[in-house]
């Protein structure tokens, strides 16, 4: 169980908790950027065991949560077409669009399939030459390279019936946007380790310097997270603001050159809307002109989408770390995993889902109206 048991050893964890306690002299607010880190923190009860001076603020790094409503609605529209096989990772199927989700579209007869790799979608396209196969390409720098690789393969193999519905986003512009917010309370960041595995750490020193904020590249297992917190607090207590790599077993300073080369060949940087946050300049990717023919938005020319976001859901504030999930009035009442008002409640990495699953004190769900 290397890399699982080893990195949740309670004796080593206690030592790290003790170290953090010893070094902490006053209140600090740290943001873990990635939803996977949020999930791990709540699931293992790390936040309960930290000194009370340390507040963990949950960041925007849940790929499902930040995918804009308009793209979800476009996905629903494309998936509804009878000639389309719509492929997606599983956790996108319950994300609410304007009134329905991919599960609902599937139950209405659409051919929606859960795949474990974008290359599975490409195989389905090869096996179904008379159908259009669309893969829902969302996520951060971690999922972008395999999706780019799939489009590269589709072009190379000449598979005309495959396309990608793209909504990829980048972490560093989001960190910048959070620090530029007048309401920002974040004093240090635990950066997402797997993002840096791909992209390296080159984008962070300038951010750390400009915002005078410590950034510690952090992994996902309990001991990884505790080590990230320990290093961030040490910097804060010492008045430092450098970039540190607390995840060296996975992250090299330069990242993965092969993955980055694939990204820059297939994608180009663009402004992107983040669900609940709004447009962040140069914070996403779209297919470059060379691969435009594989762009599902271009191929299906989905227009006239009118989105309708919940008026009570405060997931945007949760994503920016401005409130905790349970501070939203709808949390656990109108908004549950059964009836999610926002994506943060439905995603397995969403902060609201993590609080609901692991912290809730019991809220009855409502009845359904059809078999799903």
């Amino acid at each position, binding site marked *: *169980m290397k890399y*699982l048991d080893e990195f*949740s050893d*309670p004796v080593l*964890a*206690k030592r790290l908790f003790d170290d953090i306690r010893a070094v902490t002299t006053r209140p600090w607010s740290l943001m873990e950027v990635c939803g*996977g880190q949020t999930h791990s923190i*709540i*699931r*293992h*009860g*790390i*936040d*309960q*065991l930290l000194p009370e001076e340390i507040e963990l603020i949950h960041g925007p790094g849940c*790929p*499902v949560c930040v995918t804009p409503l308009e793209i979800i609605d476009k996905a629903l529209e494309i998936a509804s077409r009878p000639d389309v096989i719509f492929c997606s*990772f*599983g*956790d*996108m*199927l*319950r994300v609410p669009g304007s009134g329905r989700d991919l*599960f609902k579209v599937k139950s209405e007869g659409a051919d929606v399939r*859960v795949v*474990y790799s974008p290359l*599975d979608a490409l195989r389905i396209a090869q096996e179904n030459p008379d159908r259009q196969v669309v893969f829902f390409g*969302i*996520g*951060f720098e*971690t*999922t972008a390279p395999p999706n780019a690789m799939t489009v590269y393969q589709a072009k190379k193999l000449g598979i005309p019936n495959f396309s990608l519905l793209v909504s990829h986003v980048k972490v560093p512009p989001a960190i910048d946007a959070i620090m530029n917010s007048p309401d920002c309370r974040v004093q240090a960041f635990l950066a997402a380790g*797997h993002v840096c595995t791909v992209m390296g750490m080159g984008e962070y020193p300038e951010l750390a310097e400009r915002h005078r904020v410590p950034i510690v590249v952090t992994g996902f297992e*309990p001991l990884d997270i505790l080590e990230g917190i320990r290093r961030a607090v040490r910097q804060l207590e010492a008045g430092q603001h450098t970039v540190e790599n607390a995840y060296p077993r996975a992250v090299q300073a330069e990242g993965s050159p092969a993955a980055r080369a694939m990204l820059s060949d297939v994608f180009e940087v663009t402004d992107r809307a983040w669900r609940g946050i709004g447009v962040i300049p140069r914070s996403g990717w779209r297919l470059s002109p060379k691969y435009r023919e594989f762009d599902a938005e271009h191929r299906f020319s989905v227009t006239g989408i009118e989105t309708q976001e919940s008026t009570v859901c405060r997931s945007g504030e949760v994503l920016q770390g401005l409130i905790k999930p349970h501070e939203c009035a709808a949390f656990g009442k109108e908004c549950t*995993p*059964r009836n999610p008002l926002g994506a943060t409640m439905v995603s*397995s*990495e969403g902060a609201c889902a993590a609080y*609901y*699953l*692991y*912290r*809730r004190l*019991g809220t009855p*769900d409502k*009845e*359904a109206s059809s*078999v*799903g």
Partner: protein
Amino acid sequence: MGHGGGGTLSAELVEHLFAPAFGSDVLAELGDSAHLLLGGARLAFSTDSFVVRPLFFPGGSIGDLAVNGTVNDLAMAGAVPAYLSCGFILEEGVELSVVGRVAEALGEAARTAGVVVATGDTKVVDAGHGDGIFINTAGIGLIPDGVDIRPQRAAPGDVVLVSGPIGVHGVAIMSVREGLEFGVEIQSDTASLAGLVADMLAVCPDLHVLRDPTRGGLATSLNEIATAARVGITLDERSLPVPETVANACAFLGLDPLYVANEGKLVAFVAAEHADAVLAAMRAHPLGKESVAIGHCVPDHPGMVVAATGLGGTRVVDMPLGEQLPRIC
């Protein structure tokens, strides 16, 4: 599809739709099998349908499952399984050799479990309206005198025992159905648990609760028991028997082993004074060699399952909504 996943949606379908429509006092108990009084005998009666894909998987087939699933439902009432019915729904075009292999597997599993297939039925549906073979089995068995095993009997102080590694069947099925390779082949744990239960009853006729945590995994079974008995259940997360292969597969897919299906495992609630003896009896049986205590019932947080994490925190182990979905990254 979520309504078939064994979680909250499945439970609601039964409780809010089927049970009121059928209006049966016996059904209202909502156990894995019905408890019947017939001619002075106490019987357990159960039915289950099997729609597994693929039909053959590492460690078993739909034929084994169709026997073991129903036999285990009877065994979880403490009953000695006696007779099974078997209904085959075949999709037009399925090869007879495949039907034959499934039937052979079913017969062999019945002989191993010590039950007689007493009656059956066959239907054929049009091509495209089935998944090759569906099987429904129903079973009947005798509950020994003095045995009263029901989820409602879970009580504060009870020790929670599980008969071995969890999540194995679900990961085995995923490995073949989704074309995932986990480095090591994972065999389903499908098995008849009637013999194991008999050995447990021999040392402690007063077992409080037995449950085979199939769809929805251990977490679902524990939540159902906590709800039925209005008790809290506290788990020690580090004591959960999760094999390395299952843990790695779940970590890769973003799944929680507590929610992954099992087939040849049981969870038992036993008064603390009997726990050691029952655990020893379980470990002496081939299907219970790796049995462990994983927690206990408490008067706090009634209806809720709470796990003590390895680091010393706590987390709620909730009922899943439907099937778990693999995450994006």
